[in-house]
C-alpha cells in the first residue's frame, strides 16, 4: 500500500481528532466530542465485562444441577452482571457517548454549557468503575444488583460497601451529565432552533436528563445509608432491631424504576432519528413523540411500587401503583405507533441502522407489553421473581436499548470517525443479534411462566430444554456483539472516507465535515426549517 501517494486524500482537514495529539490533549480535553470518545472506550470495557458474567450465568444454566459454581459464587456472578451492566453500561451508554457527541451539534452550539464539568463527569465515572472493579477483584458482591436489606446490610459476607461506593460515585457522573444537558438545551440553542424544531434525539436526552437529576440523588442517599449501616453495625433497615426493609425498597426503587427510563429514552430518541432518515419522511406526530418523552419521564416517577407488590406493601398502594403502571405504557405506545406511521408510505431502505431500528420496534413492543402483564397485580403474584421478569427486562434493555445503541453507533459512526463501516458485515451482525437475542430470551418467558425462579443456580429438570436454547442463543448474541467490535475498529484505519452526509440525512450535525472540527461549526448556524424536512418524493439515496 503506497501511503505516500494516498496521504493527501486521507482527511488532513483539521478536525477534533487531529487538532491536538498526545495523552494530555485527551485526558485534559474540554471538547465534548473527545469526552464522548473517552466514554465510548470506558463503557465498552464495562459492557465486555458484563458480557463475560452473562456467559458464566448461561454456562451454569446449561444443566439443571448447580454443578459449575456453588450457589454463593453464582450469586456473585449475577450480581456483578447486573451492577456492571446497569450502572456502568446502560445508564451512561447513549447519553454519555452519542448524547455528549451530538447534542451540542444538533442544537448548533459549540460545546455543552459546562465543558469542564463534562470532563469531570468522565473522571467520576472512571473512579466509580474502579471501585466496582475492586469489589469484583477482591471477591465480589452477592446481594443482587438490588442490594436488598437486611441481607446487604447485615448478613452478606461480601464487599458490599466497596460496590455501593462505586455505584454512589458513578451516580454523580450521571447527575452531572444530566445537569449539563438540561442547561445546554435551555440556554444554548442556535438562532431559529426553537423547541419545536429540536431533533427528537435531543428531546429524548433532555427528558432523560430530568430523570437523572431528580432520581439519582435518592439512590445515592439510600446506598449511603446501607453503607453506613454496614460500617457502624446499626439497624436502619434491619427488622431485628426496629428497622424496615420495605423502606429501603421504597427508596431504592424510587430511583431504580425511573432509571429504566434513563436507559430506554435515549434509545427511543435514536430510533426516531433512524426511522425518519431511512424512510425519507418527516416524523409522524413530532409533538406527540416529544411530549411522550416528557410524559414517560414524569409518570415514570410514580410507578416504583410495582417492584414491591408481594413484599407486604399495602394493597391500596399496590392498587395505585398498578394503575399508574398501566398509564406509563401509553406514551411508549404512542411512540411505537408514530414510528410505524412515519414508515407508512415512506421510501424505506434497509441499511444496518434501519435493521436495528426494525429490531428495536419489534423487540421493545414485546418487552413493553410483557411489562404490562407484570404490572397487573394478580398476574404479578405468579410471575414475580421468575424468569418471566428476566425475559421482560432483557427484551426492553437488550432488545430495546442495546439494539438502539448499536443502530445509533452505526448511524453516526461516519460522523464521529469520518469512516464508513463495512455495510455487509453490519447487516450480517444485525441479523445475528436479532436471531441470537430471540433465541436467548424468548424461551425464558416460557420457563418463567412455567415456574423457573430467577437468581437460582439450579432448576427443575423439566426446564432444561428451554435453558439450553437460551444458552445457545447467548452464544450467537455474543458473536453478534463481537463482530461489530472488530469491523468498527477495522474501519478506523481501512474504512471508506465517509464525507459530510453519507445517509443524506437532515440535521445540523450532517451539515458539517466528518469528523467535525473542534468547535463544530465555522459560524453559528441559523435554523430556518423544521426538523426532518425531507422533500416529498425524495429519491432513496445511493448507499
Amino acid at each position, binding site marked *: 500500500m503506497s501511503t505516500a501517494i494516498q496521504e493527501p486524500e486521507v482527511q488532513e482537514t483539521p478536525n477534533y481528532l487531529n487538532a491536538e495529539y498526545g495523552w494530555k490533549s485527551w485526558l485534559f480535553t474540554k471538547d465534548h466530542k473527545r469526552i464522548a470518545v473517552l466514554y465510548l472506550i470506558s463503557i465498552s470495557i464495562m459492557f465486555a465485562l458484563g458480557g463475560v458474567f452473562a456467559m458464566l450465568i448461561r454456562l451454569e444454566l446449561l444443566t439443571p444441577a448447580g454443578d459449575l459454581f456453588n450457589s454463593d459464587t453464582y450469586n456473585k456472578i449475577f450480581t456483578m452482571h447486573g451492577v456492571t451492566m446497569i450502572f456502568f453500561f446502560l445508564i451512561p451508554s447513549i447519553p454519555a457517548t452519542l448524547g455528549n457527541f451530538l447534542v451540542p451539534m444538533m442544537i448548533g452550539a459549540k460545546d455543552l454549557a459546562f465543558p469542564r464539568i463534562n470532563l469531570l463527569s468522565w473522571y467520576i465515572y472512571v473512579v466509580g468503575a474502579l471501585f466496582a472493579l475492586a469489589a469484583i477483584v477482591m471477591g465480589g458482591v452477592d446481594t443482587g444488583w438490588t442490594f436488598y436489606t437486611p441481607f446487604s446490610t447485615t448478613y452478606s459476607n461480601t464487599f458490599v460497601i466497596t460496590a455501593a461506593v462505586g455505584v454512589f460515585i458513578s451516580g454523580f457522573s450521571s447527575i452531572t451529565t444530566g445537569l449539563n444537558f438540561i442547561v445546554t438545551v435551555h440556554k444554548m440553542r442556535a438562532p431559529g432552533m426553537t423547541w419545536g424544531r429540536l431533533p427528537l434525539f435531543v428531546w429524548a436526552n433532555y427528558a432523560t436528563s430530568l430523570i437523572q437529576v431528580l432520581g439519582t440523588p435518592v439512590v445515592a442517599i439510600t446506598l449511603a445509608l446501607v453503607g453506613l449501616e454496614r460500617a457502624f453495625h446499626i439497624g436502619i433497615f434491619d427488622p431485628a432491631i426496629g428497622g424496615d426493609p420495605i423502606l429501603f425498597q421504597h*427508596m431504592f426503587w424510587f430511583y431504580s424504576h425511573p432509571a429504566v427510563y434513563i436507559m430506554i429514552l435515549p434509545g427511543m430518541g435514536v430510533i426516531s432519528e433512524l426511522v425518519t432518515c431511512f424512510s425519507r419522511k418527516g416524523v409522524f406526530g413530532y409533538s406527540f413523540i416529544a411530549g411522550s418523552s416528557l410524559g414517560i419521564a414524569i409518570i415514570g*416517577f*410514580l410507578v416504583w411500587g410495582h417492584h414491591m407488590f408481594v413484599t407486604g406493601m*399495602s*394493597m*391500596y*398502594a399496590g392498587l*395505585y401503583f398498578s394503575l399508574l403502571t398501566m398509564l406509563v405504557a401509553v406514551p411508549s405506545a404512542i411512540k411505537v405507533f408514530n414510528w410505524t406511521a412515519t414508515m407508512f408510505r415512506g421510501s424505506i431502505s434497509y441499511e444496518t441502522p434501519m435493521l436495528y431500528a426494525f429490531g428495536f420496534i419489534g423487540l421493545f413492543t414485546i418487552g413493553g407489553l410483557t411489562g404490562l402483564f407484570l404490572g397487573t397485580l394478580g398476574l404479578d403474584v405468579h410471575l414475580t421473581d421468575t424468569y418471566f421478569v428476566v425475559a421482560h427486562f432483557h427484551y426492553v434493555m437488550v432488545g430495546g436499548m442495546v439494539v438502539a445503541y448499536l443502530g445509533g453507533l452505526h448511524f453516526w459512526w461516519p460522523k464521529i470517525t469520518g469512516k464508513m463501516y463495512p455495510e455487509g458485515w453490519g447487516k450480517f451482525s444485525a441479523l445475528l443479534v436479532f436471531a441470537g437475542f430471540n433465541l436467548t430470551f424468548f424461551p425464558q418467558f416460557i420457563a418463567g411462566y412455567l415456574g423457573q425462579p430467577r437468581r437460582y443456580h439450579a432448576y427443575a429438570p423439566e426446564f432444561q430444554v428451554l435453558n439450553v436454547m437460551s444458552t445457545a442463543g447467548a452464544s450467537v448474541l455474543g458473536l453478534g456483539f463481537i463482530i461489530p467490535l472488530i469491523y468498527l475498529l477495522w474501519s478506523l484505519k481501512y474504512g471508506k472516507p465517509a464525507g459530510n452526509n453519507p445517509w443524506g440525512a437532515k440535521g445540523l450535525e450532517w451539515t458539517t465535515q466528518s469528523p467535525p472540527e473542534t468547535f463544530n461549526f465555522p459560524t453559528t448556524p441559523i435554523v430556518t426549517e423544521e426538523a426532518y424536512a425531507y422533500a416529498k418524493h425524495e429519491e432513496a439515496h445511493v448507499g
Partner: protein
Amino acid sequence: MHPVTPVRTYVLIWLTLTILTFVTFYVSTINLGEWNIVVALAIAGFKMSLVIWFFMHVRTDNPLTKLFVFAGFFWIGILLVMTLGDYFSRSWMPLGKFW
C-alpha cells in the same frame, strides 16, 4: 443579571427570619398536641420561601427557574406522599398494620 435589591430589603427579611425563629422556639414550649409539628413546619416553610424569594433572587428570576424550583419540591413530595401512603394505608387492611 438581576436588578439590585436594596440593603433595606435584605435587612428586613433577616429580621423577619430571626423573629420567626424565636416564634418557632416559643410555640414549641406550648403544648398544642398534634398541631406542634404542623405549626413548626409551616413556619419553617415560610422562612424557606423568604430565603428563596429574596436572598436567592427567585423573585426577579425568569419563569424557567421558578418552574425548576417548584419541580424540586414537588418531586420530593412524590417520594414522601406515595411512600407514606403505603405505610398509612396498611392499617386499612385486615392484617396490615406494621407497627
